[in-house]
C-alpha cells in the first residue's frame, strides 16, 4: 500500500507542479507587484506598501467596474439559465435527430470568440447587416438601431451575445442533471394524475436544483472572467459602459502602463471572487446538510 501512495504522488506531481509554476507562482508575484510601483512591464519597482490599495480603493474606477461586473454576471446568469434550461428540457425528450442535436447544439461554444464577434458585428451592423434591414423591412423600426451606440444597449447586446456563446454549454451540464432523474418518478406521477406543470414543479425542479446551484456558482465565476468578447466588441465602451473588471485590468496594464495598479486591481478582484466562491460553497453544503 505504501508503494501505491508513492506512485499516486508520482502521477499527480507533473500536473500539480505545472499548475503551481504557471498559475500559482505568478499569482504570488501579482501580490508582490501590488505592493510596488512598477509602470511599464519589465521595469524595476520599489516597495510602496499599501499605497496602490489606497489609491485603487479610494478612486472611482475600481468600484464602477465592480458594479458593471455585477450587472454583467447577473445578466448573464439570468439569460443563460432561462435559455439553457429550455434547451436542456428539449434535449431530454426523444425526437428524431436527437443525437445530432445533442452534439451540434454546442456549435457556438467551439468557435473562436473572434468568429462570434464577427458574426454579431455583421448581423447587428448599422450599415448593411442583417437584423436592422429585416426589422426595417418588417416596419418595426424606421432607422437602423445602433446597438453599441448607447451605454445601456451596448451592455444588453454584449450580455446577449456572450449568453449566445455559453448557453449550449450550460444546457449540456443541466442535461446531465436531468438524465439522472429516474424516469419511474414521472411514470408514477402520471399514474397519480399529475399534469405536466405539476410534474415539473414537484419532480424536475426540486431534483434539478442542486445541479442548478453548482452550475450557478461555476457559471458566475466563468462569466465574471470573460474578457475577449467585451474587448473585441466594444473595448469597454461607449464611455466605459462595458468596462468590467477584467477589461479594466487589461487597460490599466497594457494601455495605461500602470502595472502595479493593474496587479492591485487583480488581487482585489481575486479576493472578491474567492470570497464569493467560499460563501457559495458554504451555503451549498449547509443547504445539503439541511435536507
Amino acid at each position, binding site marked *: 500500500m505504501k508503494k501505491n501512495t508513492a506512485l499516486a504522488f508520482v502521477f499527480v506531481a507533473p500536473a500539480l507542479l505545472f499548475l503551481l509554476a504557471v498559475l500559482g507562482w505568478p499569482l504570488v508575484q501579482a501580490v508582490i507587484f501590488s505592493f510596488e510601483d512598477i509602470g511599464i512591464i519589465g521595469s524595476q519597482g520599489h516597495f510602496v506598501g499599501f499605497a496602490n490599495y489606497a489609491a485603487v480603493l479610494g478612486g472611482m474606477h475600481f468600484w464602477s467596474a465592480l458594479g458593471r461586473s455585477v450587472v454583467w454576471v447577473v445578466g448573464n446568469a439570468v439569460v443563460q439559465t432561462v435559455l439553457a434550461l429550455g434547451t436542456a428540457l428539449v434535449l431530454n425528450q426523444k*425526437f428524431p435527430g436527437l443525437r445530432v442535436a445533442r452534439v451540434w447544439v454546442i456549435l457556438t461554444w467551439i468557435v473562436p470568440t473572434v468568429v462570434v464577434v464577427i458574426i454579431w458585428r455583421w448581423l447587428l451592423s448599422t450599415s448593411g447587416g442583417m437584423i436592422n*434591414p429585416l426589422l426595417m423591412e418588417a416596419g418595426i423600426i424606421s432607422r437602423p438601431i445602433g446597438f453599441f451606440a448607447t451605454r445601456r444597449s451596448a451592455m444588453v447586446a454584449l450580455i446577449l451575445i456572450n449568453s449566445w456563446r455559453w448557453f449550449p454549454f450550460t444546457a449540456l451540464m443541466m442535461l446531465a442533471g436531468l438524465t439522472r432523474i429516474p424516469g419511474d418518478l414521472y411514470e408514477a406521477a402520471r399514474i397519480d394524475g399529475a399534469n405536466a406543470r405539476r410534474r415539473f414543479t414537484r419532480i424536475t425542479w426540486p431534483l434539478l436544483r442542486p445541479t442548478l446551484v453548482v452550475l450557478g456558482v461555476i457559471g458566475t465565476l466563468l462569466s465574471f472572467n470573460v474578457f475577449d468578447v467585451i474587448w473585441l466588441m466594444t473595448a469597454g465602451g461607449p464611455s466605459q459602459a462595458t468596462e468590467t473588471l477584467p477589461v479594466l485590468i487589461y487597460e490599466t496594464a497594457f494601455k495605461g502602463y500602470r502595472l502595479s495598479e493593474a496587479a492591485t486591481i487583480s488581487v482585489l478582484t481575486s479576493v472578491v471572487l474567492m470570497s464569493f466562491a467560499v460563501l457559495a460553497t458554504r451555503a451549498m453544503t449547509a443547504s445539503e446538510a439541511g435536507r
Partner: protein
Amino acid sequence: MKRTLAQSLALYAGIFLLVLIIGLPFWWVVTGSIKLPQEIIQRLPTMAPHSFTLQHFRKLLQSSDFPVYLLNSIMVALFSMIVTIVLALPAAYAFFRMAFPGRNLLYRLILVAYAFPGIVVLIPLYGLFARVGLVDSRASLVIVNVALALPFSIWMMRSFLGSVPREIEEAAVIDGAPATTILLRIMMPLIAPGIASVAIFAFISSWTEYLFASVLIVSDARRTIPVGFAGMIGQYQIDWGLLLAGATAATLPVVILFALVGRWFVSGLTEGAVK
C-alpha cells in the same frame, strides 16, 4: 411515453427556436462568404445566396496573413492537446482510482484553478516568460493553454474512470501487474472516449484563446487566429466578404474535429456528474 398535442407543439417549437438561434447566424455567415460583395451589402439581405464567388476565400488565402495564423493555431492547439493529455491522464487516475493523503485538498485546489481569472496571472507570467526568453514564442502559448485546460480536463476524466469496474483492476493487481501497466494496457483502451473528450476540450480552448495570445505574441508571423484575425477587422476598410470567409475558415477545423469525436466530448460533459 406519449405526448399530448400541446406538449408535442411545445417540443417542436423549442427545436425550431434552437435551430433559429444557433443555426441561422452560422448559415448567414457561411452563405455570406460566397456572395458577391454587392449582394452582401445590398439593402435587403438575402436568405440564400443569389450569387456565387470564391473571391473572398482567394483573397483570404493569397493576400492576407490568414494562412500563417491558421498554421500557428493548428500547431499550438495540437501541442497543447498532447501535453494536456499526458499531464491530465495520470493525475486523474491518481485522483479517482487511488487513495493517498491530501487527495481531497489537492483536488479542490485544482478545481479552484479552473475558475480563477486568467488575467490575474497574465502580467507576472509575461515577466517570467521574458526572463527565460519565451515571450513571442508559440511554446509560451502551449504552456499557458495547457495550464488553463488542465483543471477541467482532470475533472472531466472523472466519469470515464469511474465507469470502469474495480474488478478489472483488482484482477490485474492479483496477477501481479504493476500500476503503470494497469494504466497503459488495461485502463487506456477502456477510457479512450474520455481521452478523446479531454483532447477536444484542450484543442478547443487553445483554438479560442485570445487574452494571452494577444499579449505574449509580438510578431505577426507567430500570431494565432483569434488575435491575428481580430487585427484584420480594423486593418482593412471593413471588407465583410473577407471577414465572413475568414470566420468560415476559422470555424471549419473545429467543426471537422467535432464531427469526428464530438459525441464523446458531449457524453463527457453530460455524464460527468456536476458535483
